[in-house]
């Protein structure tokens, strides 16, 4: 069964090749059929692999070699691994991907056929890339998939190519992640040079022999790469604006898969980070900070897609926190559960906002319970899982596993745990705020609601998974080689109370909406925010600006359409980001100065000045050429006399 593994991404890749590279005209039905079909096959292929794996084939950690490249003495292998990580992540990605694509087949069916084809081509390529990332047993295949999903996300976010906002958001995502990817590449290259192999098993085995001075930069660079892809602080800015893409894109890329790639990488390289506790601590702190601040930012959103984007950042922050304190198995379990409920949330939110005439504002969803009961209830189930309502949702189990790991992680476990629980409260608040608003009374009429199996089947399937998979969490963690942690009863109780407190708070906020406005106003007017940690304060200020920028009318700046042609688009894109404003403003000025200095190319101008100087010299020199025979004879005579003198002088000793 292990030999089946390389074929998992292949069918999605074939779908891409068929749709993108074959210069034939295809009909709409064929495009949708190929696009959706190619995305379903990986899930079907993954299932037997998973069954075999659970049956015990994964214990040995089989590796399937696909290709070997010889450079000198080195044999670089491209290979896929059959181990718990790749199987869990592979099944998650393949199944969620298949369900989202089925939904996309219905969601996108009104698009022009050319755009539809482009959409499905890139979605399939994305899926293939993501599967390559999770299945890879070596850095080559991992990075291939890693960059492929980065580029695909650019194309998919910028799917509406005529909207400058979408295009700018895509570029922003690509450039931001590329900066991180470059760091990752540097880290992987250093790791490769230090261990002499491209295979993960060899690399991790060699970690022990690298001295600390080399290991720290390697781990740091790789961590930066992973955090960049996962939209963690300080690379978080691209994710909220990336919601400019169509809903299935957000559901697949920016909830369950692409942003989780960083988590997968960190899980894969967990032994490396275990060897460098300082870097792990930084990772944990960044993860926790992202979890809290993104949760706070999500609370202030007025747009449901932006809210879900921030919630994704926050949830990934929890996973990164768990990774930082050394609990990769819990992080992986939460990755799988999160993928399920987050894509469910995006898909049902997409249907609800369709019912609200395509408006993605939270207020516009008011009345969805009447208009689209199924969408509303699936959304509510997803929100419950996101909030982690105790006992009945999968989210609770995986979150408890992570929180337990945090609590039992030594000296700093308790404060970290307390902050994480605070973030859980916020999670409950922001997720149920949407639910309560949508349950409220609103216009009953809906525009031509979607019907049919392709829309409802993925929703129902995901909703069932979001509830039932909670009972699998302990098994998942054991399967991944971790041990579910036993918590003191008081911690369990507090962990269970936190989401309920969040829900109560949400109810309160919905009943008294002015509270939220006051909170927003408070944050806007720089009044005291009841957190005394300076570090936290600075970041909140940054985040407040970010959330203002993203939420309010001033938010247009963030990815404003560029009217006059800028020297470099990126600068405009990254500009408007509150946290990086100072940095970016100086970068803007710098780059403008640099580009202005280079355009026109200064070196070219120098050469041309040299050429003109030669021309001017000729102006003067040509006067001695009179063309008269007498003058030329004089020159001849003088020249010969000079030569004779020279000869005489050199031969005369």
């Amino acid at each position, binding site marked *: 069964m292990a030999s089946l593994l390389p074929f998992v991404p292949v069918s999605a890749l074939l779908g891409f090749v068929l749709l993108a590279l074959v210069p034939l005209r295809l009909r709409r039905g064929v495009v949708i059929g190929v696009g959706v079909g190619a995305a379903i096959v990986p899930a079907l292929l993954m299932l037997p692999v998973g069954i075999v794996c659970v049956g015990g084939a994964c214990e040995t950690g089989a590796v399937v070699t696909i290709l070997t490249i010889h450079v000198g003495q080195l044999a670089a292998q491209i290979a896929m691994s059959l181990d718990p990580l790749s199987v869990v992540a592979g099944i998650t990605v393949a199944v969620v991907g298949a369900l989202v694509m089925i939904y996309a087949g219905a969601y996108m069916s009104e698009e022009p056929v050319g755009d539809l084809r482009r959409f499905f081509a890139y979605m399939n390529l994305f899926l293939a890339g993501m599967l390559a990332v999770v299945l890879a047993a070596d850095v080559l295949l991992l990075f291939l998939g890693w960059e492929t999903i980065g580029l695909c996300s650019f194309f998919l976010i910028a799917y509406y190519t005529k909207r400058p906002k979408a295009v700018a958001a895509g570029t922003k995502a690509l450039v931001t992640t590329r900066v991180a990817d470059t760091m990752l590449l540097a880290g992987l290259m250093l790791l490769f040079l230090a261990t002499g192999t491209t295979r993960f098993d060899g690399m991790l085995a060699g970690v022990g022999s690298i001295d600390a001075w080399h290991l720290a930069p390697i781990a740091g660079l790789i961590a930066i790469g992973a955090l960049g892809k996962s939209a963690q602080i300080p690379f978080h800015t691209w994710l909220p604006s990336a919601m400019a893409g169509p809903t299935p894109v957000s559901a697949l890329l920016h909830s369950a898969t692409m942003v989780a790639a960083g988590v997968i990488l960190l899980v894969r390289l967990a032994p490396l980070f275990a060897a460098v506790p300082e870097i792990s601590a930084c990772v944990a702190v960044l993860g926790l900070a992202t979890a809290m601040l993104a949760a706070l930012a999500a609370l202030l959103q007025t747009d449901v897609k932006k809210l879900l984007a921030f919630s994704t950042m926050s949830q990934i922050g929890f996973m990164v926190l768990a990774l930082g304190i050394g609990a990769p198995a819990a992080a992986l379990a939460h990755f799988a559960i999160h993928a399920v409920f987050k894509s469910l949330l995006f898909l049902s939110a997409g249907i609800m906002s369709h019912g609200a005439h395509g408006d993605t504002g939270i207020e516009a969803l008011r009345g969805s319970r009447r208009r689209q009961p199924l969408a509303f209830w699936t959304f509510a189930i997803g929100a419950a899982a996101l909030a982690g309502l105790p006992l009945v949702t999968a989210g609770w189990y995986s979150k408890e596993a992570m929180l337990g790991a945090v609590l039992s992680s030594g000296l700093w476990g308790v404060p970290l745990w307390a902050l994480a629980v605070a973030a859980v409260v916020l999670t409950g608040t922001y997720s149920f705020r949407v639910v309560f608003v949508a349950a409220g009374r609103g216009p009953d009429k809906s525009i031509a609601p979607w019907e049919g199996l392709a829309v409802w089947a993925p929703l129902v399937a995901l909703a069932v998974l979001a509830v039932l998979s909670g009972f699998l969490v302990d098994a998942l963690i054991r399967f991944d080689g971790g041990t579910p942690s036993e918590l003191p009863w008081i911690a369990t109780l507090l962990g269970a109370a936190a989401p309920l407190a969040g829900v109560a708070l949400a109810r309160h906020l919905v009943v008294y909406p002015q509270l939220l406005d006051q909170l927003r106003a408070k944050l806007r007017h720089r009044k005291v925010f009841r957190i005394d940690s300076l570090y936290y304060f600075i970041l909140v200020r940054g985040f407040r600006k970010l959330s203002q920028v993203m939420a309010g009318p001033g938010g247009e700046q963030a990815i404003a359409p560029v009217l006059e042609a800028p020297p470099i688009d990126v600068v405009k894109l990254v500009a408007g980001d509150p946290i990086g404003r100072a940095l970016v403003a100086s970068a803007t000025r710098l780059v403008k100065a640099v580009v202005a200095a280079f355009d026109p190319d200064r070196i070219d101008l120098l050469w041309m000045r040299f050429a003109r100087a030669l021309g001017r010299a000729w102006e003067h*020199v*040509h*006067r*001695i*050429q*009179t*063309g*008269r*025979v*007498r003058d*030329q*004879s*004089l020159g001849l*005579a003088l020249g010969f006399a000079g030569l004779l003198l020279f000869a005489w002088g050199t031969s005369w000793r």
Partner: protein
Amino acid sequence: MTGTALTGMMIVAAGLFATGVFGVLARRGILFQLIALEVALSGPALAFIAAGAYHGDAEGQGMFVLVLTLAAAEVAVGLALFLRIRRSKGSDDSDAVSGLKG
């Protein structure tokens, strides 16, 4: 032939050459410049003869014959050019043919 005689001969030869060169540079008439060239050529020719006589070697006279032949050839070409220039420019002023002016 003594060394002093050779030195005298050489001085005469140098004087002949210098005269010729001066003629080429000073005169503008093409015919006179040609004549001055002949004078200038006779200087080295004399030097060859003198040196041949001093060393008792016949090659000096051989070189003289070569110089004579060269001079004849040069005069032939030069006169032809002279006629050509007179016909095209209508003058025998060498400054009139300044097509190589930069």
